[in-house]
């Protein structure tokens, strides 16, 4: 990973900031938080060093997935305003360095998980990296508008891995948390896709608004928001969490559905600033942080 030689000329070594940007640090923060919540909500006590190492392994695995995603999609990223300045399309990093960095980080993250936690968590971490890179990035994303729906499973793994790292087994609560992120992903990404639709169209990505149209996407956002709300309340209704989480889920999900209604029913005109869509997208991020925080708070201070 030192310098590379091109046409007999020496090119500059990759700047570490570009390698860091390759890991999609903003996405990683949500991954780390949900994984930590899964680990903290698990029964029993985990040694702090092992807990830290497990979360580090999940963060590195997510970073590796992001790096491999950017390596594969460099050509697409170059066509979109939102992603054109990433290290690969901007030419600040060569593809081979990105590939080596991603594969190396992925292998190390799995090894660290195996060493610090258990083989079950290491297998799940491997599955989540492979799912994100092979199933979502390479297979689904360029082929179907349902890419986000199925690909959302990749982002739903962290709380499950966190739980398994702590206990070595799978239980109903982390499966429900997996389901929550899985159902949260479509309205979250389609709200974004509605206001960056031209970007996706220019890059030839078959996102829902590009293929099925704006109207169908809006209806789907509303549909998924409603079933996501039901999934969010399910851990309380089924008795796996207490009232603290339950009421947080009820109130936050009601707000989510209320914000989805104008997005689902309106029709954006020419020059529309897409405020309801931007509001829903921003709220959806806070929603997940608050709900997962509530799972941990509920576990630590049951009402």
């Amino acid at each position: 990973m030192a310098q590379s030689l091109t046409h007999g000329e020496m090119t500059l070594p990759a700047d570490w900031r570009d390698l860091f940007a390759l890991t999609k640090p903003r996405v990683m923060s949500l991954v780390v938080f949900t994984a930590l919540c899964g680990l903290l909500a698990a029964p029993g006590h985990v040694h702090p060093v092992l807990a830290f190492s497990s979360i580090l392994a999940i963060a590195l695995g997510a970073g590796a997935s992001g790096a491999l995603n950017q390596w594969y999609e460099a050509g697409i990223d170059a066509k979109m305003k939102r992603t054109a300045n990433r290290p690969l399309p901007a030419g600040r990093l060569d593809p081979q360095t990105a590939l080596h960095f991603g594969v190396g980080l992925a292998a190390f993250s799995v090894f660290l998980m195996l060493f610090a936690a258990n083989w079950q968590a290491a297998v799940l971490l491997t599955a989540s990296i492979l799912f994100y890179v092979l199933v979502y990035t390479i297979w689904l994303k360029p082929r179907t508008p349902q890419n986000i729906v199925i690909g959302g499973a990749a982002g739903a793994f962290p709380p499950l891995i966190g739980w398994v790292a702590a206990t070595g087994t799978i239980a109903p609560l982390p499966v429900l948390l997996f389901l929550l992120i899985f159902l949260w992903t479509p309205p979250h990404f389609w709200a974004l896709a509605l206001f960056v639709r031209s970007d996706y169209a220019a890059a030839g990505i078959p996102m829902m608004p590009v293929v099925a149209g704006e109207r169908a996407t809006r209806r789907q956002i509303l549909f998924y928001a409603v079933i996501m709300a039901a999934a969010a309340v399910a851990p309380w209704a089924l008795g796996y969490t207490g009232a603290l989480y339950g009421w947080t889920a009820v109130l936050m999900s009601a707000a989510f559905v209320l914000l989805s209604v104008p997005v689902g029913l309106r029709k954006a005109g020419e020059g529309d600033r897409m405020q309801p869509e931007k509001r829903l997208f921003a709220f959806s991020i806070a929603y997940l942080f608050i709900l997962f925080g509530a799972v941990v708070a509920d576990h630590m201070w049951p009402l």
Partner: protein
Amino acid sequence: MTDEPTPEPFDEAEYRRRQRSRANLMGWILGGLAFLFFFITVARMVVPK
């Protein structure tokens, strides 16, 4: 995949600066990992299976 990016023009001072900053960072990361693996080993000995 993608087109080959245009290589940046060679600048020795910048080359050395990047090399130094990466070497420093690698040193810190490897040192940190040595400590981390030591503490994981100790923690695994302390925690009953």
